[in-house]
């Protein structure tokens, strides 16, 4: 399980990285934290001609906040976001999901941008980004564009980033004071990729749900918003009956993939359980945050 041969580039600036991507296009893989890409290399399932290592791009690491958005640099390590007071105050859903990613030594290296660009549908961050409709800022020689989460995830391990583009930052909306969040998942072991996960964000106004966001991991080749269930929730007061109805609505039409760890039927059942639990936990979180 030794890595195959590749040419190696370690740009010092984003501009250099962009130039390299323009030159190599899809012959190159971008190496961020490496927690997914290096295993694929070791198994020789990834065979890039060139590896563009962006770990030297310090300009892409960091968390900042404006009035309505939290800006997270693509090379912000997961542990940095986990320790960030800004993230925990302004993006509670992200804060809830981060400790569930792998293990401590994985989060030491793994990056926010790397996980979202790798786009593993079983991972936590894509579901968070989808639930919150985060925005992805990519840069190429021809400039920057901003891609909404709904358009970012295109398929299994596939995004709308073009081969000459680099993900530079991700924008998350600042959570309002009457909102609560929860990330729920069921995995075979502590720290594993979940068989099914659910990102939930709820906002209450005058005791009723004014905004509901639910996004699943692990039930399709991309993270999936449960739009019909969200619509059912909005305008209603939180209750066990409501949450059960939302769970039925959210999972009635899903057809999750089967693998060694769980059948499609299993994932569907568990998805419904997670909706009920996740809504309950998110509603509780509203009151905790108030």
């Amino acid at each position, binding site marked *: 399980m030794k890595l195959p041969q590749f*040419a190696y580039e370690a740009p010092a600036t984003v501009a250099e990285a962009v130039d390299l991507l323009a030159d190599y296009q899809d012959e190159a893989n971008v190496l961020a934290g*490496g927690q997914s890409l290096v*295993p694929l290399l*070791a198994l020789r399932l990834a065979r890039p001609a060139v590896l563009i290592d962006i*770990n030297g791009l310090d300009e892409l690491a960091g968390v900042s906040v404006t009035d309505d958005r939290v800006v997270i640099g693509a090379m912000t390590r997961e542990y940095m976001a986990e320790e960030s007071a800004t993230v925990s105050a302004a993006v509670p859903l992200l804060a809830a999901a981060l400790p569930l990613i792998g293990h*401590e030594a994985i989060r*030491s290296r793994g990056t926010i941008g790397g996980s979202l660009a790798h786009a593993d549908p079983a991972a936590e961050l894509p579901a968070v980004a989808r639930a919150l409709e985060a925005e992805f800022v990519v840069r190429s020689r021809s400039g920057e564009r901003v891609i909404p989460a709904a358009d970012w995830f295109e398929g299994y391990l596939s995004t709308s980033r073009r081969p000459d583009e680099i993900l530079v930052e991700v924008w998350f909306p600042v959570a309002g004071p009457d909102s609560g969040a929860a990330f729920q998942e069921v995995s075979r072991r*502590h*720290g594993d990729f979940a068989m099914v996960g659910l990102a939930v964000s709820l906002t209450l106004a005058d005791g009723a749900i004014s905004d509901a966001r639910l996004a699943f991991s692990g039930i399709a080749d991309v993270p999936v918003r449960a739009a019909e269930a969200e619509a059912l929730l909005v305008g209603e007061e939180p209750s066990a009956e409501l949450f059960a109805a939302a769970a039925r609505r959210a999972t009635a039409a899903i057809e999750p993939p089967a693998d060694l760890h769980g059948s499609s039927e299993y994932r569907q059942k568990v998805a419904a359980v997670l909706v009920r639990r996740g809504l309950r936990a998110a509603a509780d979180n509203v009151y905790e945050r108030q």
Partner: protein
Amino acid sequence: MTVNGVRRGGSVEPRRTLADFLRDDLELTGTHVGCEHGVCGSCTVIVDGRTVRSCLMLAVQAAGREVTTIEGVASGGGLGPLQQALQDSHGFQCGFCTPGFVMQATAFLRTHPDAREPEVREALSGNICRCTGYQGIIDGVLLAVQRSQH
């Protein structure tokens, strides 16, 4: 890079992992390679104060960094307090996973000097041991916590 306080260097292929570089080029064979895909934790080392899987990091990425391996945990060739507590608790059996656990626990105790059992279990859950059922390891870490508080 600085390894266990000593400046070390070498010229390597970019594809060489930090684990292989430490073991073969620097002959620091205490770092063990158990899965080469980032799951088992045997190859855990500390880079700039945080634990990493050295099988998931390229050697070239450690340039300019400060690396601590199992060989650098205790000074003078003896056992440090955590290692002593692990011996006293009969923490390990075959010893293959041991360096990874010692590194992970070393870094964890720096930030959690008063850790309790559930936190210790969670902190070590990224390291796999096939021999012990973990109890001796957990007890050793808890014993080190207890001793450090007296």
